[in-house]
């Protein structure tokens, strides 16, 4: 298994509070991604990173920000959580972008009340 961990694995929070999810890899892969998975929508890309301090938006980036200060860590922040951000969040890594497969972390279940 690719060395990817996500923390926390489960979180319950209230509307309006900030939330940060962490993705940590031990593979030294260049690319890291954040997705959300919702019933009926498959996986949708939030943000991705192609190197330290290099990030770009995905399909559903509104309300989310990211940071990558080290190769191994990619943080996803919900500045002010809303109920529509209740979802399962997956981190993925890839050595060479879309020319190689992405390996997924175990996921974080987030419930915003």
């Amino acid at each position, binding site marked *: 298994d690719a060395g990817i961990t996500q923390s926390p694995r489960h979180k319950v929070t209230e509307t309006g509070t900030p939330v940060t999810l962490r993705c940590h890899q031990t593979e030294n892969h260049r*690319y890291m991604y954040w997705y959300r998975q919702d019933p*009926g929508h*498959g*996986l949708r890309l939030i943000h991705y990173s192609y190197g330290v301090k290099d990030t770009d938006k*995905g399909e559903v980036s509104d309300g989310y920000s990211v940071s990558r200060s080290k190769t191994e860590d990619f943080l996803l922040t919900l500045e002010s959580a809303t109920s529509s951000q209740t979802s399962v969040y997956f981190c993925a890594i890839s050595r060479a972008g*879309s020319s190689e*497969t992405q*390996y997924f972390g*175990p996921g974080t279940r987030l419930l915003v009340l």
Partner: protein
Amino acid sequence: ELKVEQNPLFLSMQEGKNYTIYCNYSTTSDRLYWYRQDPGKSLESLFVLLSNGAVKQEGRLMASLDTKARLSTLHITAAVHDLSATYFCAGEQGGSEKLVFGKGMKLTVNP
């Protein structure tokens, strides 16, 4: 903008039967990926198809890619219960490093 459609979204089949599921995409994508997800679990990479005509096989699953038809297929041979899962295909968003996923096909294999 790339759109990826999977067909069907739900499939119930009997053990021992064969079936093909389809993944269509809307614009040029030279790379196509198949993933498997068990309930409550993460996604597991099954196949990476990187060129037109690519065919990959693993056990009872065989995937192929036709970039001209913008179609990938996942063929199941002699299904067994352990294949029950949700299967996702994903295409590369033209020239970017982003993948666009289909909505997934939930497969149930009944004894």
